[in-house]
């Protein structure tokens, strides 16, 4: 199992190549610490595996849960590609945050939480065809979120994520 940690810049996580790429961005505060790990280092066609994001909002900050309306929810989006099965990401139950000035209760995450993305290598004929001769697969994803505390909000951010898994011959 490999593990990567970073906190703000768009990055790529490469399981196999162990490379982290930070894009050029203006300085801005750390809002959400992101760590990820993959359940298997090598997979075979037909296997399922998970990518788990360990997410920790900065002190006093919260990010919005997928169930919110009128705010920007956290969303993990995996780019589809031939041979890759992408299941819906799994988010934990939200915490209820009561924002007194507006007298509204909002679904958020304030404490460290996990988002689990189940993936698989497609064993259908089309999937096998797509993966034929492929020794590693690069999964591209994006994590979008928006963070606030009770006095300030920061614009929505999107972090590009990349994992590369080795493919064993079946």
């Amino acid at each position: 199992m490999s593990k990567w940690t970073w906190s703000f810049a768009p990055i790529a996580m490469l399981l196999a190549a162990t490379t982290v790429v930070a894009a050029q961005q203006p300085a801005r505060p750390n809002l959400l610490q992101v760590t990820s790990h993959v359940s298997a280092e090598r997979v075979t066609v037909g296997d399922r595996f998970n990518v788990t994001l360990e997410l920790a909002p900065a002190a006093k900050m919260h990010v919005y849960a997928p169930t919110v309306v009128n705010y920007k929810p956290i969303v993990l989006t995996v780019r589809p590609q031939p041979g890759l099965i992408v299941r819906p990401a799994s988010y934990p139950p939200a915490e209820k945050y009561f924002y007194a000035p507006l007298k509204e209760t909002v679904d958020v995450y304030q404490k460290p939480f996990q988002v689990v993305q189940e993936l698989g290598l497609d064993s259908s004929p089309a999937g096998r065809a797509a993966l034929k001769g492929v020794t590693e697969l690069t999964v591209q994803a994006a994590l979008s979120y928006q963070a606030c505390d009770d006095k300030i909000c920061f614009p929505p951010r999107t972090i590009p994520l990349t994992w590369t898994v080795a493919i064993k011959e079946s």
Partner: protein
Amino acid sequence: MHAINIARVVLGSSLLLGGVAASAAAQTLAAPGEETYAQQMAREQSEHPTLKIGSAAPAFSLKGIDDKSHTLAEYGDAPILAIAFISNHCPASQLYEGRIKQIVRDYADKGVKLIAIAPNGPMAVAPRELNYAEVDDSFESMKIHAEYRQFNFPYLYEGDTQQVAHQYGPKVTPHIFIFDRERKLRYEGRIDDNMRGNNIKTNDARNALDALVAGRPVPVEHTPVFGCSTKWNSAIAGKQREMKEWMAKPVTLETASLDELKKLRTNPTGKTLMINFWATWCGPCQTEYPELLTTYLWYRSRDFEFVSVALNTPDERASVQKFLDEHHSAVRNLIIDTDDVYAVQAAFDAKWESGVPFTLVLAPDGREIYRIEGEADILALRRRILGNLPDAGMFAGNTEYWRK
């Protein structure tokens, strides 16, 4: 703009203030079918006549900013009782706060007790009449204002029923009434003859107090007053008229390029400019925004502008317009023309970390007066603005008052 301010000042007798005659002010304010300023003053004096010299002090039981009830009787031990009618919002009244506090200090050992009563009905004060104020005239605001200015005297609220105010009949704030041991009115009028503290020729209230302390006749029992007219709850037409005019203004939304934002940062308005970056996805922005609009409503009669900038992306324009409509944001509203908020950050202000709300107040020369990333302390914001808006001579010293 100045006509409104001038018209708010009651000019007692033939007194001139700032070279402007009462009649001029009256003529400026009067609209077809509406009573003139002079007519208003005459009507109010008829409806709420000022207590006559020699009259007994009307009894009262009023709530003070200490949340306790205060009565005339509780000051019965004081040989001399001075009752000053003052208000939070009135710039003239504000300029006299320091002098009132000094009277309290100077006469504390001479048997003089001074209390202040705020006679105004908060709902009768029009937004434009709050153009020198950090708070309105409500009871809770009295607490804020008194604490900020460190009042050293009881401050009582009389804005709901105004029955006590009606019995005393203060024409303006400030208007002081001084009673002797038998609680007979011995002096009524101004505190001194000049709002500008360094131009005072006659300390009328002090002269009266000195005479009473010495057991002598009060040399001048009545003086004309100047200040802001008492706001009677029965007369809210001015406020209604102003709000109607405000609500008739359209709420527009312009698209702004990065170059336009750069230009905005230089403050091309020639006025004091408040810029607020906000977004629909920002709770603190939504909390703060009405207070900023109120601030603009209060100060817009002075050289003050407000520009709002939505940090939403162009495809969210409809939700931005909806929010602005709901709050009737009839100011210059902008939305950025890019989804790259960090480009906005870089173009507008390199020190800005792109958090919203972000509020910046710029002097006419572009100098930064106030800056906050995050929800503003609205009182601190207003005080900073007031401490930088020119007082235009009308209330000379008021700008300095807000800098103390």
